[in-house]
């Protein structure tokens, strides 16, 4: 809901993404802070953590287009990130291709993989489709570990990109700082694209398909084509994330993205709230920070307190268990997710003395 006293006087202002001056102000502050100020004040550990979160954001923005708008559940998003990461690794490792040239190739290649594994979505719905994407992840994973393909994809422990670092003029992106800035810019572009897809003709078609497939088909939407398009777009996002991941780690391996990651990407959408870009940001930050808090800060503290028998496992175990319980509790008690809480809060202060009007 809009704040009181704010009316659109032109069509352009009705269509604008950023509507008020306050929003412009906060947007500018957020952009300047995340792109210019954080690299100056944060140390390498936090920069790498934030870069990882940024890469997750790009994946989940893509998944948001597929699941949040299109209603197609994908648990295999991690697999498509792997495809993107491997494409850049193979192209630079074997042919020494320029890293920037690989970016569109990664996006398109991943998108095509998405189309192939999205084909069952013609006939499948709901958790059937989720199972198909699960199978897709396993098949992709197998392709990268299969002995016969090792001449191309390298040994099963992974492929290194260290010989061909990403550079732009004199800027070398192997340092944490530059990598973080690159990721932050990509996140900004990705968010802009995701928001625009959401409010364009394409996004509205996806939403129509999500709400009622038959009704969408009757009203003239080519359901099959649009489902595949949703798969293509979301997997292209995943491919770009894979490109960034490959250069952030300088090393790709099939174990970088497992089934658990695919499930947690979906969990981020659920915690954030379906069908909202703000929700994507809230969900990703919530779960990623929870994970980092658990694995890097709480588990070393707990390890000293419990016996050795359990302590050795805590680091790997605490993150998934607490994150998983968090997702389950959110789905059970707050089905609208964090964005629902945020909306209610906004409604509360905008209507302030008469908050009961909002219900």
């Amino acid at each position, binding site marked *: 809901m809009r704040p009181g006293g704010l009316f659109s006087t032109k069509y352009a202002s009705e269509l604008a993404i950023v509507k008020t001056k306050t929003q412009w102000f906060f947007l500018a502050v957020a952009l300047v802070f995340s792109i210019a100020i954080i690299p100056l004040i944060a140390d390498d550990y936090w920069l790498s953590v934030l870069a990882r979160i940024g890469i997750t954001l790009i994946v989940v923005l893509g998944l948001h287009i597929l699941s949040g708008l299109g209603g197609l559940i994908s648990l295999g998003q991690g697999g498509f990130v792997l495809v993107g990461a491997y494409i850049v690794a193979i192209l630079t490792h074997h042919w020494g291709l320029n890293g920037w040239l690989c970016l569109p190739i990664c996006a398109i290649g991943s998108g095509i993989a998405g189309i192939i594994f999205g084909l069952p979505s013609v006939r499948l719905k709901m958790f059937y489709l989720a199972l198909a994407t699960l199978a897709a992840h396993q098949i992709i994973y197998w392709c990268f570990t299969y*002995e016969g393909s090792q001449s191309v994809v390298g040994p099963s422990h992974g492929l290194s990109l260290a010989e061909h670092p990403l550079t732009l003029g004199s800027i070398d992106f192997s340092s944490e700082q530059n990598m973080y800035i690159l990721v932050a810019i990509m996140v900004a572009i990705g968010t802009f694209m995701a928001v625009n897809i959401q409010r364009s003709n394409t996004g509205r078609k996806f939403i129509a398909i999500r709400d009622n497939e*038959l009704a969408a088909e009757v009203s003239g939407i080519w359901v099959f084509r649009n489902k595949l398009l949703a798969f293509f777009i979301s997997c292209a996002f995943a491919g770009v994330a894979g490109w960034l991941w490959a250069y952030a780690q300088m090393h790709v391996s099939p174990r970088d993205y497992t089934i658990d990651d695919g499930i947690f990407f979906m969990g981020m959408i659920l915690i954030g709230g379906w069908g909202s870009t703000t929700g994507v940001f809230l969900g990703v930050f919530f779960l990623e920070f929870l994970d980092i808090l658990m694995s890097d800060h709480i588990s070393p503290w707990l390890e000293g307190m419990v016996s050795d028998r359990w302590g050795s*496992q805590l680091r790997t175990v605490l993150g998934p268990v607490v994150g*998983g319980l968090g*997702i*389950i509790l959110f789905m059970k008690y707050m089905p609208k997710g964090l964005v629902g809480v945020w909306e209610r809060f906004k409604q509360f202060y905008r209507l302030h003395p008469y908050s009961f009007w909002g219900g």
Partner: protein
Amino acid sequence: MRVLYEKGKAHIIASSIILAILVAGLIVIFSVLSIDDRDKSIKAIVGGLMNGGVLALITVGMVVVYKATRIFNMAHGGMLLFLTYLTWWLIADQGVPYPLVLFLVAIAGVVLGWVLDRALFRGMIGHGELSSFLITMILGFSVLHYITKLIFEGKDRVMPDIIGWILKDIFQVEGGTVHVIGTYNLPWAELGSFIVATLMFLIFVTYFRFTKSGLAMRCVSEDNIISQSLGIKVKRIYTIAWIIGCLSAVTGGILLASVVGTVYSSRGGMDGLAIMMALPIVVLGGLESIAGAYVAALIIGLTVSLCGFYVDSYIRGFADVVPWVLLMVVMIIRPSGLFGVKGIKRI
């Protein structure tokens, strides 16, 4: 239900004809083959069928839960892993005698089923199939899996030979294998697992077919609101379904572990293996059909075993991925499965 029965009759006739032709063909082929090849292929077929029986038992828990509550239970693997580790812990770590252990883990299964139903899934009634599916997914793959790792230290353990003990103490059978043909000896662990699994399966089917509460469960699976208004205690049926699910998980887990020989949670874990094999079975058999689960389990077990024997030497590691490929293929060709019910869509 009536429609299913009529179709079922045709299916039974058709499948018995196909089966007869297959068996006749196999006998002809076996009489032509050399002794070594014959033994090898019989080993692949029999081993696959034996595994299929165990998988059927694991799968039937998922089918029962889906039938009654409309929740596709991906946490089945996690439940299986937890309860199997519990069995190992009671026998090997605590030294409890095994008849008592079987009793205790059965109680643990009942308690786990009851707790899951009361704490988690009862509140999800009416929230849609998708949210429940995702909850079970996260519950199984991250919460139960990692909690088991934490409690039982995440190491691979040698499973105590429960089947061997049962054979020795009750049936006085010594020796680890049964002679089948030529040089091929079938390990008792596999045969015993198959027999126990089939017996358990028959118990579940009997419960469904011939008891009042089984009838109530079938009624609930048709329409839970009408069942409620007819006086069936739907919530109690849901609890029973979850308990049956957990019991199938615990027996299936113990049998699977005795076939594999270890209890493990690394490399995807036993839960990953069980889920990987169970998914194509559930989908091929049809989500609502218990008999379908058994038939599909035999088919999938056989296919995976044959692929392991004959394709694996050309494409290494193909047996690891073949259940997923089968899942994709089945879902593209026939999403409702062999014995499933096709839904009707209305705007």
